[in-house]
């Protein structure tokens, strides 16, 4: 046990510090100097080229949007903690907080350079499936007529990466080792997400083909959802989740914090979707941004409402957890197409279908005996696919169904396959799943030696 811990611990250290180390040793001071220079420039010479108030506004708005997206981390943490057992709450919170820590660091050192090689001067990205622009932000060639700074660009993208990563923690909750999870998290934010992200947002091949995914139904949520599915499959269900073929529900330990999490996520989505317009100073841009805000609102609402009514109709009582998932489903669904869908389409088609997909998806996973404690796959995987395909279905003028289908398959498929492999490797290394005894005791005590709720008159 101790030995295993050390072993797994080493593997993490390696995974964690590999990148840091390289940089630190090889180029740190060099970089630091350039940096310092750069900073000096920025700060010391106010009379440098002034791009006007519009530039300031673009930066400000994109920054605020990025901060809202950042806050979604809190939403995921609450949703996942609330929908899981109290004996695994510390573990979930740990994974979520490490996702953002590991995520932004790796996305700074590696991810950004992989996802946006074009910004670093790499040519013909439209024909490349992989490219690397460089470490950190120094190589970023910001043009003179830029509408926002490399910094805010990075920040907005970094929180997206962390979002993709943290989706998975919900699907693998209650049974995955910390060590294995940290490695997964590093790989996803450092490599997988940026690679497939580059195909579309980095101006890569899929983008060249006209694949359309405005704010990342596939690029972000699809990747997270399918990575989660892969994890859930390799890990297998929690003990007692399926008893001789029968599905045994394991209700969450705190719906209040789960509901809070959903509200936080909805709040953050107003940064996620509208922010993805990336330009706000022209009237056309800001109008488009506001259009996105409205479609996002309507799809979330109808997704939640339809999922609720369906659960009521099908199961006899309105199921809060389904309604909450439905809201998230509507949000994921509209993410790809919030710019092109009309308000009526958002309210009457995108949201409702997403709401229905939640119910359908949850039941389907049950049928295949796949244990996804928080419904991460139905929400992010299925509704992510729906969002992309809906463009081909309803707005062929924007992008054809074929192109949408191909793009979605490539991105989600890439995440699914690579993650199947990664999780299998972790399994082979013996750092994937905790022992049966540890699982029954709960990961909080076995992995962290603490309990989420100390509270009892007797103990305090």
């Amino acid at each position, binding site marked *: 046990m101790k030995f295993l811990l050390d072993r797994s611990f080493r593997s993490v250290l390696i995974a964690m510090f590999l990148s840091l180390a390289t940089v630190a040793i090889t180029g740190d001071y060099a970089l630091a100097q350039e940096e310092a220079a750069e900073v000096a420039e920025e700060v010391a010479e106010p009379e440098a080229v002034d791009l006007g108030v519009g530039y300031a506004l673009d930066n400000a708005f994109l920054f605020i949007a990025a901060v809202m997206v950042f806050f979604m981390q809190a939403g995921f943490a609450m949703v996942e903690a609330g929908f899981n057992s109290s004996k695994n709450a510390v573990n979930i919170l740990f994974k979520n907080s490490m996702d953002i820590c590991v995520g932004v660091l790796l996305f700074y050192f590696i991810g950004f350079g992989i996802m946006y090689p074009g910004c670093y001067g790499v040519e013909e990205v439209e024909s490349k499936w992989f490219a690397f622009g460089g470490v950190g932000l120094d190589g970023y060639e910001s043009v003179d007529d830029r509408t926002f700074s490399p910094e805010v660009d990075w920040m907005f993208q970094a929180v997206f990466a962390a979002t993709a990563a943290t989706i998975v923690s919900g699907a693998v909750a209650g049974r995955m080792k910390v060590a294995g999870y940290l490695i997964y998290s590093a790989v996803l934010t450092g490599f997988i997400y940026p690679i497939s992200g580059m195909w579309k947002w980095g101006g890569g091949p899929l983008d060249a083909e006209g694949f359309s995914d405005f704010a990342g139904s596939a690029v972000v949520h699809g990747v997270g959802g399918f990575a989660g599915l892969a994890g859930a499959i390799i890990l297998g269900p929690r003990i007692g989740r399926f008893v001789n073929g029968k599905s045994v529900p394991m*209700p969450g330990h705190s719906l209040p914090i789960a509901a809070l999490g959903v509200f936080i996520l909805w709040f953050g989505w107003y940064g996620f979707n509208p922010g993805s317009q990336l330009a706000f100073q022209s009237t056309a841009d800001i109008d488009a941004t506001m259009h996105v805000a409205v479609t996002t609102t309507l799809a979330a609402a109808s997704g939640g409402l339809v999922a609720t009514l369906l659960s009521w109709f099908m199961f006899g009582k309105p*199921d809060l*957890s*389904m309604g909450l998932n439905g809201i998230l489903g509507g949000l994921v669904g509209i993410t790809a197409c919030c710019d092109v869908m009309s308000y009526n389409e958002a309210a009457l088609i995108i949201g409702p279908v997403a709401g229905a997909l939640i119910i359908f998806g949850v*039941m389907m996973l049950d049928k295949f005996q796949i244990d996804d404690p928080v419904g991460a796959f139905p929400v992010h995987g299925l509704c992510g696919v729906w969002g992309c395909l809906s463009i081909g279905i309803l707005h062929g003028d924007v992008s054809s169904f074929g192109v949408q289908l191909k793009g979605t398959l490539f991105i989600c498929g890439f995440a699914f396959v690579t993650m199947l492999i990664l999780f299998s490797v972790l399994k082979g290394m013996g750092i994937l799943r905790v022992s049966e005894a540890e699982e029954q005791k709960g990961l909080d005590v076995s992995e962290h030696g603490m309990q989420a709720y100390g509270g009892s008159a007797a103990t305090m």
Partner: protein
Amino acid sequence: MKLIIAIIQPGKLEDVKAALSKVEVVRLTIMDVQGFGRQKGQTEVYRGREITINLLRKVQLQIAVNDDFVEPTIDAIVEGGRTGDSGQIGDGKIFVLPMDDCIRIRTGERGPEAI
């Protein structure tokens, strides 16, 4: 002396306490428990799956009484704890255990007068 243990419906606690104080039984200890009995746990549907909440929330009363208080206490609990006149599955049980001694921590008194 007896120790009376009663498992009742949470919603009935107030009525039972009222009935008990009528017979001057004012000291008791209660705790939250989960019951599993004849009453088939309500079958609910959670995320589309049948789930039998067969561990139902109950409240357990613990009352130490002198022998002459046993019957009144039992009657009071039955009276206060029964749903409607005919009672309902899930209304619970009362267990009467023999008790050798009772000590009042405050004073150290022992036996019947310590109850």
